[in-house]
């Protein structure tokens, strides 16, 4: 597009400088807090973080919930996206609009809505009691299940949108061709759809996983503080303990987890393609 590399680099320079000054430098300053002890560089804060059993439990719980939400979002996301791309273009636009709509509502409001839905007198418990599945209302609110549901609803739209755009770019005949050649639906998905939409899955997966790791208000409210997560721990370190060093350790762990998830998803996608 541009005559030489220098020209294109020069054009990218202002944006890169802006990002470096207002984003990368402050983040590096913040992260360096966790690597300093009394003016010297040190890993002491990291050692102390990982040698506390409570922190390890919280780390594993956060990772587990992030993975579960991402996998669930991928499964539901593929089903929804496959339905949406088969709609007429007008209806597709409407559906995508409906899916994007919740993203325009504050996560706080969406989380509060779950208190109404999942409560003892909420519609979920009313439905369960009326069809006779349970005698007394279940305690869904303020548990790990509630956090899972809240996070899934919060980030599912990002997965669906990524997968819809990936599926739209897939040659429409590919599925029919595979079917004609005798593949069953599972084989079609595994050998045709998945390899052709892996980019969408990588983007959607990274967004959902990162979002689940870093969401604060949903675990804080729907978990009822009985379920400590890394993000709630980070909030405590800053607001109560005024301890920016260990907050920076947690921030670094969250960043590393997000990048690792992205790399892992990419690796999985390419491994499938090579086979």
């Amino acid at each position, binding site marked *: 597009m541009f005559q030489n590399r220098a020209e294109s680099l020069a054009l990218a320079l202002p944006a890169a400088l802006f990002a470096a000054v207002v984003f990368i430098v402050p983040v590096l300053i913040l992260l360096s807090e966790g690597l300093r002890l009394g003016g010297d560089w040190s890993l002491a804060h990291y050692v102390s973080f990982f040698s506390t059993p*409570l922190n390890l*439990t919280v780390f594993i719980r956060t990772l587990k919930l992030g993975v579960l939400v991402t996998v669930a979002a991928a499964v539901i996301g593929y089903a929804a996206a496959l339905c949406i791309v088969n709609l007429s273009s007008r209806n597709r636009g409407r559906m995508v609009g409906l899916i994007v709509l919740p993203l325009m509502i504050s996560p706080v409001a969406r989380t*509060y809505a779950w*208190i*109404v839905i999942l*409560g*003892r*007198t*909420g519609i979920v418990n009313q439905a369960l009691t009326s069809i006779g599945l349970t005698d007394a209302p279940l305690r869904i*609110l*303020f548990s790990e299940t509630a956090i899972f549901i809240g996070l899934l609803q919060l980030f599912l739209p990002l997965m669906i949108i990524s997968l819809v755009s990936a599926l739209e770019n897939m040659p429409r005949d590919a599925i029919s061709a595979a079917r004609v050649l005798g593949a069953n639906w599972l084989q079609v998905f595994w050998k045709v759809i998945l390899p052709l939409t892996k980019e969408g899955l990588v983007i959607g997966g990274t967004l959902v996983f990162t979002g689940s790791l870093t969401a604060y208000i949903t675990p*804080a*409210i729907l978990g*009822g*503080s*009985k379920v*400590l997560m890394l993000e709630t*721990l980070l*909030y*405590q370190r*800053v*607001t*109560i*303990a*005024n*301890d920016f060093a260990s907050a920076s350790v947690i921030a670094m762990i969250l960043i590393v987890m997000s990048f690792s998830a992205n790399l892992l998803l990419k690796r999985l996608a390419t491994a499938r393609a090579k086979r």
Partner: protein
Amino acid sequence: MKKILLVSGAALMLVASSAQAQERKLVISVYGFAQDAFKTILYDPFEAKCGCKVVVETGNSVERLAKLEANKENPVIDMAVVATPDALAATRAKLIEPIDVTKLSNYEKLYDIAKDPIGGHMSVGYTFYATSIVYRSDKITINSWNDLFSKELAGHVAFPNVTTNQGPPTLYMIGKAMGKDTPDLKAPIEKVAEHKDDFVTFYVRSSQLTQLMQQEEIWAAPIGRFAWEGFAKMDLPIKWATPKEGQTGGMNVMVLVKGAKNKDLAYQFMDFWLSTEIQTKLAERLIDSPANKEVKLPAAVAENLTYGEDLVKSLDLQPAEAILDNRESWLSQWNAKVGQ
């Protein structure tokens, strides 16, 4: 023509510079809530009175204290309002200086607990609130902080998380009720941990409580008086408990930043804020309970605030020193025993 231009240019510069000299600025650091009301009741009238400009910086206490610390050498803020433990933290970090109370004409009108909350005249209280238990009076009766652990209430209480402003005062009163009120709050935290599964939630935002009460998820919760209005409006029989161990609460104070550039304006502003007129207006809008004892309020307004000599005298506030020195240990005990 050239001469005329020069002369008028010079005149214009003179006017501009004198306007600049007149336009003095008072920079204040406050909580972000109810700023529209503060502007009409407090900031605008003060600007008109002093002929200066009030620059308002808002945020939570952590952000605002961090900013004071960052600008320690060359302070931009003149005065700030914070909670008592934060004022003590600022004192220890040498970010604020003693207030010369002789410069505050309204000082003598304050309730005694507001006059020198953290000692050394490092702060002056401008508002406070009571903390007690709201409860469904048709379901239960609450006479003691210990009732939060009763069998009848199991599965019906929202307890404040230790990270909220209501958490430590509630634990403090439970300690008193248990007869084990050491500043480390060890006994009350252990008691909460024992009954952990009996609590519906350890809430982080008091705004969610009205919804939980309305949905009958909870029958009782310890709250600050500032949140009472939402419960009082509900179409349910709800009462404010007066436990036999007393009520606790919290206080917000004004502090003077060390090396402030506009100290005279800061004093004028603090005095104005503490005046009977301004404290009455802020109370009437249900923004802050008055620290000025000359404020007279109609019963309907007083009902929603922490008001009246008897009530104020009965408040058993947790010492700021105990909060500041033990906050971190409470948090780690809580995380290890309750937050798991």
